[in-house]
């Protein structure tokens, strides 16, 4: 049941990314919702779930985005797995770590994607890509991630008070 829910969340996030988020860009930059969801799932359920969520989300993005299918599946799968491994270390449960962590992970994922695409002769220059895509998107992800974390914390607080 939980896996199904995670799957729905990640599929929903992927579809959301290609529809709603695509028109919510600021200066042409959109947040990477599937990556944010992958990170949140990895933080909550560990590396296996994070890896699978990242893989499915990435695969979906690849398929709907028109690029090489498998690139984002691979990078997001790795990102989810890596983030899941960090749970319990480096105060990852602390929101003050999670947000910068998400930004760094976004940059890492971008770098990984760029490196992977280099193998397939991706034409864009690294500097331009970093300046105009990877860094702004990482910051945007950090912002959205902060909101998600705050929303989750509020929900958790309400849930605890209600159950008490």
């Amino acid at each position, binding site marked *: 049941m939980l896996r199904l829910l995670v799957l729905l969340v990640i*599929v929903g996030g*992927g*579809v*959301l990314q*290609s*529809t*709603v988020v695509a*028109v919510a860009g600021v200066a042409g930059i959109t947040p990477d919702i599937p990556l944010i969801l992958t990170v949140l799932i990895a933080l909550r359920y*560990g*590396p*296996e779930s994070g*890896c*699978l969520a*990242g*893989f499915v989300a*990435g*695969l*979906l993005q*690849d*398929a*709907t985005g*028109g690029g*090489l*299918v*498998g*690139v984002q*599946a*691979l990078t997001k*799968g*790795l990102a989810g*797995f890596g983030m899941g491994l960090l749970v319990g270390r480096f105060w990852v449960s602390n929101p003050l770590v999670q947000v910068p962590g998400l930004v760094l992970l976004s940059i890492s994922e971008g770098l990984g994607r760029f490196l*992977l695409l280099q193998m*397939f002769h991706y034409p864009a220059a690294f500097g331009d890509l970093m300046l105009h895509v990877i860094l702004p998107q990482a910051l945007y992800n950090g912002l959205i991630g902060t909101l998600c974390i705050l929303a989750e914390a509020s929900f958790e607080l309400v849930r605890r008070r209600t159950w008490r």
Partner: protein
Amino acid sequence: MRVGRYGILLAVLLVSLLLLTVQTRGGGTGRAGELVTIAVTPVQSLLVRIHRGGLNFWANYVDWKSVRRDNAALHEENEHLRVQAMQAGETREENARLRRLLVLKDRLPLATVAGEVIGREAGGWVRSLTVNRGRGDGIAQQTPVIVPDGLVGRVVQVHRGAAVIQLLNDPASTVGAVVQRTRTAGLVEGDAGGTVRFKFMARDGASVAPGDLVVTSGLGTLFPKGLPVGRVIKIEDKGSALFHFAVLAPAVDFSRVEEVLLVTGQTTQDVATLFPSEG
């Protein structure tokens, strides 16, 4: 557990690389990509529709709010303009009244002081007006008070900056008058009912008829001669009595008097021609 964890990672890596390899070898996105696309496309379409619907809804809501705000602003403006129009109308009417008063003041061969009504008493026991002219303006008791339509009454109380005018229809009011057409003399008195009566008309030779104008007689020194008092609307004939009387419609609508002229001078001239004579 650890093997499973890395097994998943390995599987993900392998599948991804396999997909990439298949694509680069054979071109296109491959069957896997197609399958994913086929599965996802309807959901995407649905989501886009929901998104567009949401945007439309939001746009409608924003429009509605805008219209509502505009409506409130226009409503407020409308109220403001209505008040302005009322004020303008009021000013126009006041202007017309003052113009008529000024014309009368200029034409009268009498010294007059213009006054503004600042109070009214119309309870029945007493019918009076208070004006903003008093002792300091040269107003004395018994000063006649007129408007362009005719006689209003006389001053019965004078204060430093105000004067109280007894209206013609006050029960204690008495004015010497004549029927303009027949010169039949009598007294105009008010009564508790608020009407004005022309009393003590001699029966003999008094062919007074409804519509006749009654004016001040000018006998005595109080009221100038010829100030319109009212028009006869009914003759009350008591049969064998020596006198009979007529019910008058006052020349002045006392309830609408807002500015008056207080006659401070005296004249023996008949001023009837200076007032409107239409019946």
